[in-house]
């Protein structure tokens, strides 16, 4: 962006209040207390101190920030950056040496702002997950009917068979020649 579009808060400057802009960039070398809401990039330089909630498309912190950050695209906390506050963004970069205290939310809430690379990531993840699920499902499907219904069926079958056999045994009035083959038949079923 051109210089005319960039707002610079000089090192000796203290702003108490709200800063609102459209697609403008904001460079803070001094102090800002209040709220910042711009459409462009907010850069807090090394000696900049900001005590404000920031809503911008991109936020770069090399100085001190106390407040919540909400960025549609990207947040970067440089090695000299200090942040106390919650961060909500699509992409987050924290350089070694940076200090951050707060909650980070990188959930895909703002789908409208998803950039092309993150879209690709989501697609490949989805494809691999479904492939894994497809591969796993037939195995589970073949195991389940084999193991579970078989013992249930045998239990259900055994009792009526035994009752029937007992009834038959009573009805035939304990004829020794007839009783022997039925015992054999029951024994086969139990083993099977």
């Amino acid at each position: 962006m051109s210089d005319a579009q960039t707002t610079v808060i000089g090192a000796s400057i203290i702003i108490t209040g709200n800063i609102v802009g459209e697609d403008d960039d904001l460079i803070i070398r001094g102090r800002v207390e209040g709220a910042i809401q711009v459409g462009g990039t907010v850069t807090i330089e090394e000696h900049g101190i900001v005590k404000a909630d920031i809503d911008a498309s991109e936020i770069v912190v090399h100085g001190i920030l106390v407040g919540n950050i909400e960025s549609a695209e990207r947040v970067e906390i440089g090695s000299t950056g200090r942040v106390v506050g919650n961060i909500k963004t699509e992409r987050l970069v924290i350089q070694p040496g940076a200090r951050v205290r707060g909650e980070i939310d990188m959930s895909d809430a703002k789908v409208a702002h998803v950039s092309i690379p993150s879209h690709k990531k989501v697609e490949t993840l989805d494809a691999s997950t479904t492939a894994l699920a497809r591969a796993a499902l037939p195995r589970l499907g073949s195991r389940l009917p084999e193991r579970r219904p078989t013992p249930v069926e045998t239990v259900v079958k055994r009792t009526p068979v035994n009752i029937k056999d007992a009834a038959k045994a009573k009805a035939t009035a304990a004829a020794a020649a007839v009783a022997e083959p039925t015992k054999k038949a029951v024994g086969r079923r139990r083993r099977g």
Partner: protein
Amino acid sequence: MHHTENDTIIAEHIVIEGEIVGSAGIVVEGRVKGKIAMAGRIDIAESGQVDATIEAPEVHVAGQVTGNIIAVDRIQMESTCRMIGNAKAKRILIADGAYFAGNVEMGSN
């Protein structure tokens, strides 16, 4: 532009509501509502709109100002200036074409 690297620039589409205080200069191309108090020079550019009390050693106005200006040294109103409010300074310059409605207090501190 006359500002150095340290100076503060409020770009055209930026709106600041509140107080701006500092020991350097400032260029206002956007909007400021509230108060500006600087130890350096204040430049209100042609696109600048300020609804604020302004205090600085030197104030140049090419844009719109609604509010009082107190300058220790000098107030300069350019031809594109539209100023509504009181002006107090050691020296006050008003260019041909400038609009100014308010009281003037010149000379002594």
